[in-house]
């Protein structure tokens, strides 16, 4: 915490009062953008933020389902079309949900520590710990699934290449975005601003 951090807080308070045309003329940093109240109605209350977190979880679930479909479906049975459709639906939900969650949490997970105060750093650590435990559970489930699939088959079982790619994508997305989902879910409603 320093004078520079104090000046940054003042700057972010001033940014909130500006219009979109003024934003476009400024060279805003990533930290600045995450302080702007874009579409605040989508995350103003705890209920709406939890809906956002739910949308993020749903998009992750779609990618996991995609990985399962990649494993089970044959390309000739239209499996590729199912995969591409699921991927498109997933991206339509994932991208806006993640953007709004980053703004709702003021970049809690995305920004470097020098942009966060001690409370935000502590909250990020708690969200990351919870997300880590969930990811560990998912990895264990993947391992068990792989063992069961291998035990039930005859001889060497070959996993389709596209299934491996989709599974890696699902794992990577889960690892990247789960802390953000957890922090959005946990975020309480802030006090209303003082009347100035």
């Amino acid at each position: 915490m320093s004078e520079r951090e104090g000046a940054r807080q003042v700057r972010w308070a001033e940014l909130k009062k500006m219009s979109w045309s003024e934003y476009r003329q400024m060279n805003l940093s990533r930290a600045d953008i995450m302080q702007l109240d874009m579409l605040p109605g989508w995350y103003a209350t705890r209920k709406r933020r939890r809906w956002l977190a739910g949308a993020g979880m749903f998009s992750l679930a779609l990618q996991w389902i995609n990985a399962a479909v990649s494993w089970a479906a044959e390309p000739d049975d239209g499996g590729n079309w199912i995969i591409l459709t699921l991927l498109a639906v997933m991206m339509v939900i994932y991208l806006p949900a993640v953007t709004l969650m980053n703004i709702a949490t003021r970049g809690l997970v995305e920004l470097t520590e020098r942009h966060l105060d001690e409370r935000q750093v502590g909250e990020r650590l708690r969200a990351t710990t919870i997300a880590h435990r969930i990811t560990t559970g998912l990895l264990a489930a993947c391992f068990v699934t792989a063992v069961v699939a291998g035990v039930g088959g005859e001889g060497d079982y070959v996993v389709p290449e596209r299934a491996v790619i989709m599974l890696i994508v699902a794992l990577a997305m889960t690892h990247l975005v789960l802390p953000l989902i957890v922090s959005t879910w946990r975020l309480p409603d802030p006090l209303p601003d003082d009347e100035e």
Partner: protein
Amino acid sequence: MGAEEVYNRIPMLRAERGVSRKELAAALGVHYQTIGYLERGEYSPSLYLALRIAEYFEVPLEVVFALKPFPRLGSEVKR
């Protein structure tokens, strides 16, 4: 913060001095929502932040923070 509950008089000190949450946050170099969480007792500050808050208001630390609820004003007046 579980069983660790810290009581504070930050809203009262702000009101006395006419300082808004945002002004206090800018002076301390923290996010203004952190001041809100501090006031509601939903976040306990580090020793460093607590000392800086006391320094800002120019009062001893025990005037700002306590482990037990502060007595109501006037409740200590003897008959």
